């Protein structure tokens, strides 16, 4: 089976060079053709997107754009829609994730981009979203209007299905011309979304493009970066630094690096009834997309003193992971990924040798592992792919100071604790760099309007043009109706 990735307005398929990426899952195989553009083609594409963005997208009201996106999302939520069917059929083959997990994950995720949720996005960043459509009064006096960039370049990473929608939709809401570069690990979804948008509103067909190049292809990357007004990039710090070195100095650059998220379970959540629920939710956070998200947990801090001990919580969690393995089996790992898991286990096993109170659960050949540790163990990333560490602590209040050295890497914390403790912990965690606190079981499903890494999804993309009060006042004197 062959599928073509990307979305290239103005370029005929036969003018473009296509390269084939091969994917397989069990007996299913899929060949994806990805476009390899010449410098000239990249420049032509950027010119077309810039021009169409100025003339079409920027003339639409935000409400109209919200409606168009809402219709596109409605199509992807409709399980009979051909694109949705294609997503359900092909994404498991491309990413290796379990089909059911993808189906449920997509629905939950897409629901955060419907009209009411998009309006929430806007309201989160703009006290008056009308500022995207026209000059609006601002608090300091005068008026201002927000403009999105002519060319917003997205460099996406990872294989969590649908993830590019976050920034692509953000770009559309601020009326930017968007060019997104898809990762080789999941090159399809963004292109489908672009095609749906173009089908729904043909006048926007040229306002965005989806391209590909092999990660690290500097020539291709430079060809696009020089066209950009603003660059959004995702990935590891090394590749982000490399991209930054190639972004022209006058171009704004926003980087979203790898993050570590974790969970905290208060003794109040460890009574006999609630502990199994907490273990179920914690396991779900681990299982969803095999910890590939920035919001996926790597460690759970579990407080002593509840009816259920951290050690028994660990066992509940282990059994939940075993159960989830039957419901949502882990995807087949690459050799490198399997190596990371083995290295993580090896490290944990070494610690068990020196500290017999530590434990490691799950078979070495199995699809999950839980390490149980006591004392001040290092706060470190897991081996990914369903490897998780449980750290028993006397008090959750001690955790924040322990993780403070990792400020640049912290993101989501899933917390099960009573209200006063939740606020107390949140305050401490915020100080050391945590930007999102969710319920256990919700770590991998940020709510609509979430401030990614504590930043503004939309506000960070725009520039304000202010008409100061003086200009407004003086202009009166030039009016034909001046008295």
């Amino acid at each position, binding site marked *: 089976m062959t599928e073509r990735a990307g979305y290239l307005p103005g370029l005929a398929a036969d003018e473009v060079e296509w390269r084939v990426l091969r994917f397989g899952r069990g007996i299913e195989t899929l060949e994806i053709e990805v476009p390899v553009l010449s410098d000239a083609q990249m420049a032509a594409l950027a010119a077309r997107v810039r021009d169409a963005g100025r003339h079409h997208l920027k003339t639409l009201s935000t409400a109209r754009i919200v409606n168009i996106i809402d219709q596109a999302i409605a199509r992807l939520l409709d399980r009979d829609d051909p694109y949705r069917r294609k997503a359900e059929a092909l994404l498991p083959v491309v990413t290796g994730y379990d089909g059911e997990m993808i189906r449920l994950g997509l629905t939950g995720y897409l629901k955060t981009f419907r009209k009411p949720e998009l309006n929430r996005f806007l309201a989160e960043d703009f006290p008056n979203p009308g500022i995207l459509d026209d000059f609006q009064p601002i608090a300091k006096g005068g008026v201002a209007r927000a403009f999105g960039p002519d060319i917003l370049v997205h460099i996406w990473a990872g294989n969590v299905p649908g993830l590019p929608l976050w920034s692509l939709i953000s770009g559309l809401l601020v009326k930017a011309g968007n060019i997104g570069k898809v990762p080789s690990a999941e090159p399809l979804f963004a292109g489908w979304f672009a095609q749906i948008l173009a089908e729904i509103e043909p006048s926007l067909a040229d306002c965005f493009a989806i391209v590909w190049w092999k990660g690290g292809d500097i020539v291709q990357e430079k060809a696009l970066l020089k066209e950009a007004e603003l660059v959004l990039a995702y990935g590891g710090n090394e590749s982000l630094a490399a991209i930054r070195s190639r972004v022209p100095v006058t171009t704004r650059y926003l980087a979203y690096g790898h993050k570590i998220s974790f969970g905290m379970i208060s003794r109040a959540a460890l009574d006999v009834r609630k502990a199994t629920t907490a273990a179920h939710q914690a396991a779900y956070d681990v299982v969803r997309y095999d910890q590939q998200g920035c919001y996926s947990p790597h460690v759970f801090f579990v407080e002593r003193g509840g009816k259920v001990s951290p050690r028994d919580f660990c066992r*509940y969690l282990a059994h*939940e992971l*075993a159960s989830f393995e039957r419901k949502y089996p882990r995807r087949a790992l690459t050799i490198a990924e399997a190596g990371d898991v083995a290295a993580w286990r090896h490290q944990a096993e070494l610690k068990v040798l020196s500290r017999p109170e530590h434990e490691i659960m799950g078979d070495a050949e199995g699809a999950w592992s839980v390490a149980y540790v006591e004392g001040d163990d290092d706060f470190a990333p897991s081996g990914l792919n369903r490897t998780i560490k449980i750290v028993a602590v006397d008090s959750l209040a001690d955790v924040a100071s322990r993780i403070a050295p990792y400020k640049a890497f912290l993101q989501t914390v899933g917390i099960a604790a009573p209200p006063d403790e939740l606020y107390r912990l949140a305050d401490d965690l915020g100080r050391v760099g945590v930007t999102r606190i969710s319920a256990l079981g919700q770590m991998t499903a940020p709510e609509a309007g979430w401030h990614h890494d504590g930043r503004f999804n939309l506000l960070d993309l725009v520039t304000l043009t202010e008409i100061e009060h003086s200009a407004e006042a003086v202009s009166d004197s030039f009016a034909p109706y001046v008295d």
Partner: protein
Amino acid sequence: MDFQDKVVLVTGASRGIGAAIARAFAGEGAAVAVNYLQNTAAAEAVAAECRELGGEASPFQADVTNGDEITSLVGGVLETFGKIDVLVNNAFRPYVFDPENRKMFWELDWADYQTQIEGALISTHGLCKAVLPSMKMRTQGAIINIASDLVARPTIPYHDYTTAKAALIGFSRNLAVELGPFGIRVNCVAPGIVYPTDATRDTKEEIKDMLIASTPMKRIATPEDVTGPVLFLASDWSRFMTGQTLYVDGGLVMN
């Protein structure tokens, strides 16, 4: 069914149903701990048979109604075999099954009930608790308690014995709920009368004929008949069954 690398502890395994269960596990490659109370020679013979059948086996003497002896039994098994995957609580307090001369209700004292209830539950309670740390550590394990079909159909009302076995089934269901989240399963096997065993050696032909007449399969269970369901409940084939009671009586009881 493959029990290679699995460790099974069977209580009361020097004779009768327990010995048959031990042999059956060994035949599928398991390492079997043959617990017994008194008859060392018999237990050693069962262990030898187990080894001949292809499994590992060792006899372990212990009075499973005694807490200290349970602790040293489980400690000994763990020391010998490293873990316990399956516990079969088969031992029970001696009871005379004599339909003609059984005690009628008004002849029974509370002490008679007490004896049987303790016989069925003290050992099971103690052993379940003792094997739990080892099973929890690996979040897997199967416990199988041997009950009786008399609970569902008291063909002959052995009040004290059957009440104790009914308590055992209730005990098992509660434990199944508690241990499910740890991946540990608890089930019962409830045989009808099994012949020949030491407990049924003196059962009269007339009684057996009466039972055979009402049994769809038209015979009485042998110890080997009981082993299949026990192995099944110990195996991954029953991985999603817990808190259940399987009746092994040729269809006398249908639930």
